[in-house]
């Protein structure tokens, strides 16, 4: 307490001192470490072109979402910020972001952004973030361990039972982390997207949004449904009955822990997304093994549905990241200039191709290099049947509650109790009129 008190005072005093110094002409940017290979060449180009100084604030991926939300709400965020697309509408609704629609008239490359992806980063009809990439989600698997467990490859599970069956075989073959299904609070959004939502979408029929967290027709959050229960049961089977160790989800650096497990041949199945083609080794594409080496080590398959009647055969949900401008940016024109320089087609296309990211602009996605890449072609095929998150204000809270609920499952809580807690928390946050139940 004493320490925090002192630090706060020092921080406040230094802020007060800082406020009296005249603002100097520079533009600041906050971005996650994994995006440096896109942002940093952009910053260099911006400096060379405008002669302005850039204050580049590179942050660790762990806790990034919370940091950005906190900095924007406290008024201490940079002029330009990278954000997960799901946060854009929420941040915009609080008035923290500046609209970017004006770029449509001033920047000739704006027209190439896919409208659906701009829509995700919009609030009340205005665009607040330009997407860096989109993604698809799938089950990655370690081929040497599949061979050891005697599972036929290419692996094509048709239902959750098939997945659990393979997981059991891997466990019996001595693979420690036989099915890494993101869970718990520490990984934040990864738990909701890579784990929970992917299963939920295949847990019940899509009719009436019975397989979602929110009924898009009525605008209500779903507090209890057969799909939600089945999904929690699925987590309980993996972490409870089958005894999957939970520690990767809580490691000091979860991403590094997964990479270490893969390198140690301890990883069986990993529920994750298309970025892993690079990120399983290095998100910024440094020292990646060759295409052949990577293909020999890991493979991937679409997430199958649960196998319950009327459920989808395979599921997919897409997210992605964006870069936007702080509503309090001192010089908005300069901040926008930095954004457009980062997204300039030369820099953007090179990064997209080198890191196997899914393109968000037609001038890149329709280029021959992109279309001829077999990995991107296969991933794009998955994107034909995808959906997005419930990116309305409130989603971040709902997502955090889901993460908390999976943490309780890890603790051995029973599904009835977890669903009840989740439902009550939704009512606490949004009021009973905004929460519904499917029997």
């Amino acid at each position, binding site marked *: *307490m*004493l*320490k*925090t*008190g002192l630090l*706060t*005072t020092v921080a*406040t*005093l230094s802020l007060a001192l800082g406020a009296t110094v005249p603002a100097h002409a520079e533009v600041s940017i906050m971005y996650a470490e994994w995006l440096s290979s896109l942002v940093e060449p952009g910053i260099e180009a911006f400096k060379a072109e405008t002669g302005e100084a850039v204050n580049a604030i590179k942050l660790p991926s762990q806790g990034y979402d*919370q940091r950005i*939300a*906190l900095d*924007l*709400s406290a008024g201490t965020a940079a002029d330009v910020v990278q954000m997960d697309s799901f*946060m854009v509408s*929420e*941040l915009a*609704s*609080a*008035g*923290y972001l500046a609209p970017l629609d004006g770029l449509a008239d001033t920047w000739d490359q704006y027209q190439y952004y896919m409208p659906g992806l701009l829509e995700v980063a919009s609030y009340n009809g205005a665009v607040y973030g330009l997407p860096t990439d989109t993604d698809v989600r799938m089950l990655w698997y370690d081929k040497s361990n599949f061979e050891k467990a005697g599972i036929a490859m290419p692996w094509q599970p048709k239902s959750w039972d098939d997945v659990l069956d393979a997981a059991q075989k891997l466990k019996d073959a001595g693979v*420690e982390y036989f099915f890494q299904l993101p869970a*718990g*609070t*520490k990984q*934040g959004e990864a738990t909701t997207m890579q784990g929970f939502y992917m299963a939920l979408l295949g847990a019940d029929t899509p009719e009436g949004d019975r397989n979602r967290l929110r009924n898009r027709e009525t605008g209500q959050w779903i507090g209890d449904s057969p799909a939600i229960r089945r999904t929690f049961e699925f987590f309980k089977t993996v972490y409870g009955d089958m005894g999957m*160790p*939970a*520690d990767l*989800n*809580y*490691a*000091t*650096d979860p991403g590094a822990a997964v990479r270490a497990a893969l390198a*140690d041949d301890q990883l069986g199945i990993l529920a994750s997304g298309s970025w892993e083609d690079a990120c399983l080794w290095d998100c910024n594409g440094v020292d990646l093994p060759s295409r052949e080496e990577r293909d020999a080590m890991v493979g991937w398959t679409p997430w199958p549905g649960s196998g319950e009647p009327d459920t989808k055969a395979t599921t997919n949900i897409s997210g992605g990241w964006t870069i936007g401008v702080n509503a309090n940016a001192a010089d908005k024109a300069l901040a926008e200039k930095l954004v457009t320089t980062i997204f300039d087609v030369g820099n953007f296309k090179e990064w997209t191709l080198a890191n196997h990211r899914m393109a968000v602009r037609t001038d890149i996605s329709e280029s021959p290099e992109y279309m001829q890449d077999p990995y991107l072609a296969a991933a794009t095929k998955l994107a034909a049947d995808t959906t997005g998150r419930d990116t309305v*204000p*409130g989603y*971040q*809270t709902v997502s*955090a*509650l889901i*993460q*908390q609920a999976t*943490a*309780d*499952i*890890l*603790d*051995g809580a029973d599904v009835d109790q977890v669903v009840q*807690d989740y439902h*009550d*928390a939704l009512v*606490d*946050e949004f009021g009973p009129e905004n929460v519904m139940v499917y029997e």
Partner: protein
Amino acid sequence: MRNQANPWLTNNLFVLGLGMLPALVLIAVLLYFTAWAFAFSFTDLALVGRKSVEWSWVGLENFERLFTRRGFLESLWTTIIFVFFSAIVGQSVLGFLLAAALRGRNSVLKNVVEVSIMLGWLLPDIVAAFLWSATTAQTGLLNSLFVVPFGLKPINFINEFALPVVTIANIWKGTAWSYLLFSAALDSVSREIVEAAKVDGATPLQRIVRVQLPIIRPHIATNMLFITIWTFTYFPLIYALTGGGPGRQTETLAVFLYNQSFSRGNLGFGSAISVAMLVIVGALSLIYLRMLREPK
């Protein structure tokens, strides 16, 4: 007394006020943050979204939820266990035993022990977290040295013993403080008193329990006060090492507060948790301050 001070100074309220200004600012800033948390604990203020701007008063709702919703009581219990074993039993007792055992010695052993425990104290929390994460990993030091050589299957310590691991890590990290404080306190016990007790036939144990401990009682209370407050609100090592998990196994109040405020984004509820923590720490401090008083 008044005529001893400079009459110009004592009559010049402006100069006096100016001299007090830094202290007033400091107190005002500290009070501001406490008052802020207290006021917003009665609202539904959110970190982002509409409720971050258009918040409303919700009365005692947040405080009711401390008891009616899962989380707070579990975290309080985890925190009590963590504080008791890592701070009170671990750091304090171990620090005292080391200080008592090494007292007056000027050996290599003492230097080695002092440097070792100081290193733990000096390391940044995040570095310590990575270090303990690596030490307790399945391919880590503990398993390679003490488990695998005996033909046993490597143990996944963080997965199976998360709370003991963070407790031990915190003992390792914080014992230096108690050791230093107790060393200094024991040095202040005059040699004559101890010698006198020895002449009177007191055993070594009696000399510690009957003579030295009562003399350094205020130091013990001060030490308890500090480390209880620190440990109760301690965040970085636990968060970096386990993030409160697996599940909620290591979710102390500080981690719970962080998750509710910044992940869930409910600053109103988060403020209520911090007010509750303030009350608990305040009550504990009162008990210790009472201990500090000389017995009548």
